[in-house]
């Protein structure tokens, strides 16, 4: 048996083995993904598909990294400021005293997963905006988070009823890796817009692309248009 043949035989076997494993893995994954199949068949009240293109359904939030904030409720402060008549700051206890909402919404991560029907509890951004008295020239909202992270959202979308400052998911507090104690929630945009370890909400006139938006991700981030990248 020649050396060249041995090498070729090895390469062929390795290639065949890799292809077999990859195809097998893909088939198993596809066959087991009932949640995604079911969600693809559903349509939302607004006529959009429930599952945006290129997404697959998972059952729990995935931690996607980021520079974590303290995670401690005692350290939590939320500044509502910018183009507002009455800027203010809330601690955790003050946040809990505001009128609360609890709503089921779907969230969609730009990396391709979606989590459906999460029950999120918190305070709407619209309520905070009303309390602060936003000025008429405000057009955008900047979600500010620990270590200088920011995410920009159009005012209209930030004031939507589903957009919240949230501290509880499915009746439980967030794990630190998911943004404890309080994170933003803008469910109709890719999930990076829902800033974890929230520290502020700033109303501005001119758009200010945030952390990921200045790193090649889309400035708007509509999952139904697959606005993933710039």
């Amino acid at each position: 048996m020649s050396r060249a043949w041995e090498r070729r035989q090895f390469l062929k076997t390795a290639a065949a083995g890799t292809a077999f494993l990859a195809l097998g893995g893909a088939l198993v994954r596809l066959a087991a993904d009932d949640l995604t199949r079911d969600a693809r068949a559903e349509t939302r009240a607004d006529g959009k598909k429930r599952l945006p293109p290129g997404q697959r359904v998972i059952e729990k939030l995935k931690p996607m990294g980021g520079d974590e904030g303290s995670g401690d409720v005692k350290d939590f402060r939320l500044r509502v400021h910018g183009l507002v008549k009455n800027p203010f700051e809330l601690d955790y206890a003050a946040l809990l005293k505001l009128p609360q909402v609890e709503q089921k919404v779907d969230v969609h991560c730009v990396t391709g997963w979606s989590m459906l029907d999460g029950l999120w509890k918190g305070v709407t951004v619209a309520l905070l905006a009303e309390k602060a008295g936003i000025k008429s020239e405000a057009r955008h909202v900047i979600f500010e988070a620990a270590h200088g992270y920011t995410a920009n959202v159009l005012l209209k979308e930030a004031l939507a009823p589903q957009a919240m400052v949230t501290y509880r998911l499915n009746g439980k507090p967030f794990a630190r890796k998911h943004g404890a104690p309080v994170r933003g929630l803008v469910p109709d945009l890719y999930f990076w817009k829902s800033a974890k370890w929230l520290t502020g909400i700033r109303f501005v006139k001119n758009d200010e692309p945030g952390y990921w938006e200045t790193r090649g991700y889309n400035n708007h981030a509509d999952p139904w248009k697959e606005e993933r990248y710039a």
Partner: protein
Amino acid sequence: MHEGPAGASSDGAAPVSEPKAKEDAAPQKASAASRLNPSFTTLVRKRWRGWLRSIHRDVGYLAVGLTVIYAVSGLAINHLQDWDPNFTGFQREYTIAPIGADVPDAEAVARVREALHLGVPRDVYRAGDELHLTYDGRTVVVYGDSGQVTDQGQSPRFFLRVANWLHYNRGKKAWTYIADGYAVLLLYLAISGLFMIKGKLGLRWRGLLLAGLGAGIPTAYVLLSGGPNANERKTADASAVAPSAGDDGDDNEPIERPAPRATTPGPATDTPGDDGDDDEPIERPPVRTPPR
């Protein structure tokens, strides 16, 4: 070596050949000298491949540590959606007897500690019906009204937490320059690798084939996937076929879209109050350096 006519010096003629012999010896000396002390260009011509290999070897040694960090961390963060590459965590649920709002803080903490066999917390916070007991790397949250308890914590993964931190360049400062230097070293390794071996195993055959394959994979992927603008084209095509409300498929139109309907419990995207003014300009300042 110069060969004089045979017997030229043996015919009794004057020894004219001596100066000539000296002249003949000069190139020999020069040749020997150039062998002993060759010019720089000769050296480069003869030995560049050897030097390339030597430097490649040493740069390779130098790059091992950083390559391990970037490669292992790259594998880890490339699959963010499948696992947490930075932390191992836990979350447990318990139910204890409800704790009313009228129970004093110290008493409430004592009840929780007793029910769950917990030590002295580092910190205690109480707001609304929530009681938070903080320990190092662990938080116990008690919902007093229901008695439900969430006990959760996390600890950093050995090596990966630090490697990922470096890979993301979260620390900034000097690491930016170190990473730049490493990228330059990688470029050297890649390019010098092309020329280290000559002949059939070098760029003439195997090297060319494999280097072409290596360049062909990303090229084919970009061509087949449609590249960075694939999604924009797909969206434009979809809009052309079935425009959604308020979207005429014009990629130049503003990115604002109608706000959700207030009365719809699920996500919704249009509202009677929206003026449908799609001509509003996008105000976007020049990209600024992000704060981290």
